[in-house]
């Protein structure tokens, strides 16, 4: 301890943030103002307080001037509070004797009126000074971290993250809602821009997950509830009955073949309804785990209870078919969570003039992906619903994206996947392919080159948004089952009508239905569009508002496979960094009860969402279990005796802050 703490000696540091703050607020004046505030020993302003020299400046002053409290007037405390706390700590004062005044996000970047901005800046600095004078040293408490990670979502991002973590020796629980791993990527035949075989990329990874001793794969499963906090979460996972025992099944498919349903009559969701399946089925041949699943809505045995159960017979001694299976709930304790729940594609049916759902020849891009897939319903042949091969195919870009009626954002991958589809369709059918685009966005390695290649392959690029599509008959064109697309060709400056046999809609990527529930369950926030919000776009792109919860893949925003994989690894690295630490320091802003002042009135007890408060029957007072307290302060605000207090947010500290905010104009 350098000086007696009850004699505050405060240093105030006003950051220019380059021109970010200094451009809007007279930092010199502000420092001069700060010098006149109570207990302020000195006030400086400096280019970049967060820089090494900036931090050193504070540290030197702490030592030379025996400062015992620091106010940094800079950017949001959510950005650099920890930085300055560490700097102060290194110089020998408790990190909780540092207070940040947020001048950048809250004043400089938003202010319209220079004088008002200067006044607000002064008020925020004065509030910080008044408040910090009453701060007392606090200690962070360490709690052990459970060295296990929950990965939610078995798409490419979830798979990647799980493998990286497991390879580092951490236990992983991977939860997938569907009966198989793979997500959207498993539906594709080729990837862009290199046109690699998707199955060749994905299948080994899926198998690796299945075989990894550190990964527990839970398919047909969903997280129901999450409790706890960073370092120790308890997740309740509901596991739907598959009716086929994963441990016993060898994936011979005899049961599927022997099912009483002799023909496949149920639309296969994995094929977007373009292919059919039986009540017992494998979503696709490379599914992992390679275990069939029984559709409880369609299976005769499960629906009516009456069936010859030829599947059971087919399985024979293995006895893997198990109709007694029931849904059950498992609880797992984990230290960190990676959310990789992916996206869904935009449903274009609301755009009536594009005719989706009305004209059989209008397809979504994802449907065409299935047609192109060698393991898909048409074994890779691009054919219309009547089995004929199209001779003219239109591809409409930006369906549901860059459209203020639907999604204002650019879905980022549509241009490239549209180019891929154009290439593949032309390659496999020789059809004329027309691409209706607003502009082609092809950033990234080898993408522009791929665009050129597709152009050279003879695909017609028409710059203009598809206006509408009608039947050939309406337009007086003799083309059975055909369509006529109307498009304003902005390069030629005329409206063109183009006869087509097939129209592909390059639909947007959007947040999954249910993303809201997931967001709440994991304590995250969402961007406006509904994608999960990263903590900071640059500094913490895979972190979220909830410290132990990380995001990866397209649930955070549209992205391609490469980016999803990269982000998954980043999330895995963050999770690893967290659980590998072994313990975590909790913020000390927990509540406590002044036992002399507490009357045991029980007002606070039902308020605590974490059951951290109880009444000590002997003393007739309330007590806080600090291990359970998360520091919301709801009990403190309710206490009519001021017996409940919250560290870092005591009544007095907040009154001081209010007074500081308003005492100087």
């Amino acid at each position, binding site marked *: 301890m350098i000086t007696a703490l009850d004699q505050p000696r405060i240093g105030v540091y006003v950051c220019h943030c380059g021109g970010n703050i200094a451009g809007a607020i007279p930092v010199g004046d502000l420092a001069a103002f700060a010098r006149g505030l109570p207990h302020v020993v000195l006030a400086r302003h400096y280019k970049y307080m967060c820089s090494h020299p900036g931090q050193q400046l504070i540290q030197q002053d702490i030592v030379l001037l025996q400062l015992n409290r620091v106010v940094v007037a800079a950017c949001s405390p959510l950005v650099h509070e920890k930085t300055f706390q560490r700097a102060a700590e290194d110089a020998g004062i408790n990190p909780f004797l540092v207070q940040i005044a947020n001048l950048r996000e809250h004043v400089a970047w938003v202010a319209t009126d220079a004088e008002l901005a200067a006044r607000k800046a002064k008020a925020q600095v004065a509030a910080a000074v008044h408040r910090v004078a009453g701060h007392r040293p606090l200690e962070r408490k360490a709690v052990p971290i459970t060295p296990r990670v929950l990965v939610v979502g078995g798409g490419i991002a979830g798979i990647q993250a799980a493998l990286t973590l497991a390879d580092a020796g951490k236990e992983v629980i991977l939860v997938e809602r569907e009966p198989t791993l793979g997500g959207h990527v498993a539906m594709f035949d080729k990837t862009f821009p290199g046109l690699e075989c998707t199955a060749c990329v994905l299948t080994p990874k899926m198998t690796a997950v299945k075989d990894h001793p550190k990964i527990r794969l839970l398919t047909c499963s969903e997280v129901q509830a999450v409790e706890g906090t960073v370092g120790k979460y308890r997740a309740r996972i509901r596991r739907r009955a598959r009716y086929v025992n994963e441990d016993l099944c060898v994936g011979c498919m005899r049961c599927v073949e022997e099912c009483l349903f002799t023909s496949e009559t149920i639309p296969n969701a994995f094929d977007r309804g373009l292919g059919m399946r039986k009540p017992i089925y494998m979503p696709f041949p490379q599914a992992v785990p390679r275990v069939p699943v029984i559709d409880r809505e369609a299976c005769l045995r499960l629906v009516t209870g009456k069936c010859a159960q030829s599947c059971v017979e087919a399985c024979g001694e293995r006895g893997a078919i198990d109709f007694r299976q029931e849904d059950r709930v498992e609880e797992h304790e984990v230290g960190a969570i990676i959310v990789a729940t992916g996206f869904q594609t935009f449903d274009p049916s609301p755009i009536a003039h594009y005719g989706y759902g009305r004209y059989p020849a209008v397809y979504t891009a994802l449907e065409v992906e299935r047609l192109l897939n060698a393991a898909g319903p048409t074994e890779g042949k691009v054919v219309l619903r009547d089995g004929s091969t199209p001779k003219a195919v239109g591809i409409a870009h930006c369906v549901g994206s860059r459209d203020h009626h639907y999604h204002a954002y650019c879905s980022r991958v549509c241009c490239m996947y549209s180019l891929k589809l154009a290439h593949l369709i032309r390659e496999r059918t020789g059809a004329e392919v027309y691409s209706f685009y607003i502009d082609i966005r092809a950033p990234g390695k080898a993408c522009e080159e791929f665009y050129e290649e597709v152009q050279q392959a003879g695909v017609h690029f028409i710059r203009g948004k598809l206006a509408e599509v009608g039947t050939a008959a309406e337009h007086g064109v003799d083309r059975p089952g055909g369509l006529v697309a109307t498009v304003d060709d902005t390069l030629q400056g005329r409206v063109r009508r183009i006869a087509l046999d097939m129209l592909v809609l390059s639909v947007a990527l959007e947040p999954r239905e249910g993303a809201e529930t997931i967001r709440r369950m994991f304590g995250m926030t969402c961007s406006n569009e509904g994608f999960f919000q990263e903590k900071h776009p640059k500094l913490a792109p895979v972190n979220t508002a909830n410290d132990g919860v990380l995001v990866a893949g397209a649930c955070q925003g549209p992205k391609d496979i490469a980016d999803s994989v990269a982000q998954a690894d980043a999330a895995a690295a963050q999770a690893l960094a967290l659980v590998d630490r072994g313990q975590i320091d909790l913020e000390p802003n927990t509540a406590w009860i*002044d036992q002399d*002042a507490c*009357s045991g*009135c029980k007002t606070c007890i039902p308020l605590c969402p974490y059951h951290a408060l109880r009444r000590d029957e002997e003393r007739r007072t309330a007590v806080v279990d600090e291990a359970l307290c998360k520091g919301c302060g709801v009990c403190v*605000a*309710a*206490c*009519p005796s001021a017996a409940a207090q919250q560290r870092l947010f005591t*009544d007095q500290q907040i009154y001081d802050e209010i007074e500081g905010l308003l005492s100087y104009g």
Partner: protein
Amino acid sequence: MSKPKVGFTWCASCGGCDEAVFDLAEDLLQFADSLDIVLWPCAMDFKRSDIEAMQDGEMSFCFASGAIRSSEDREMAALCRRKARWLVAFGTCAHLGGVPGLANLDSRESLLQTVYGDALFGNASPGQVRPQHATEVPEGTVSLPTLDESVKTLGQVVRVDYVLPGCPPPTRLIAAALAAIVEGTLPPPSSVLAPDVALCKQCPRIESKPDGPLLRELRRPHEHEIDPEQCFLAQGLLCLGPATRDGCDHACIRGNMPCTGCLGPTSGTRDFGAAALSAVASLVDSHDEHQIAALVAEIPDPAGTFYRYSLPGSMLHKRAGGPAGGGPRP
């Protein structure tokens, strides 16, 4: 050693605090042996001039009851401050403003208008005669003190050394304070001479208060039978015991009526009404915002309920400008 000189005086008061001193009964005679009561207008013939004749600081302790409402109250407060070494804000009116402090819900003008101007009941004197600061009568001038715009606490016009709270102060606390004066064992100045914990601590009904949120409906005491054993809040009746300083031996609660907060807050609380409000609202058992609004609307008179005794001493002190009238608005 000479006996400590003690005075009792009153400003805008109902006399209940003085009655509470009478209620010391036999103890009062005891104290009269060891204390020299030099001022007590309610019970003894000492006039203002007798106080003025005292030397500054001559009284050791002056117990001043009543709120500060008029120029005369202010003068008396100042006089007692000067003549007493230690000034005790005696009773809730002196401490926080008391029930008459509810007058701060209205302007002085609207108050005079109601009392002297409005012929609400048809029996007011015609011609709008009102009391005047100075009235010329044939024989001379008769003057009245002017009313201040707001009711104030004693501590808002003079420095106060001690507070003895309550409406009236519980006799037990008065006896303890006088005994401490006799024995020289008073706590340091700025103390409140009462326990510093809320009423629930010793409440006979606390065990019947559930741990869960409990306000599903708000009842008014005249509308329902009141269970004589169960926590009032658990019955849906507003009881301010959780926010109110102990020391009254739960007189109202024993009388089967909820606490209305007359002893004021414990020492950590800045604004009794807001603190009590927070505690009560926190008990509302609903997560639906409309239902919450409907439920709290069942409290017919929040200001009169939470500031029954403490409006002048509250942070807001008085109704802000704008049209007068302290009734609740929808």
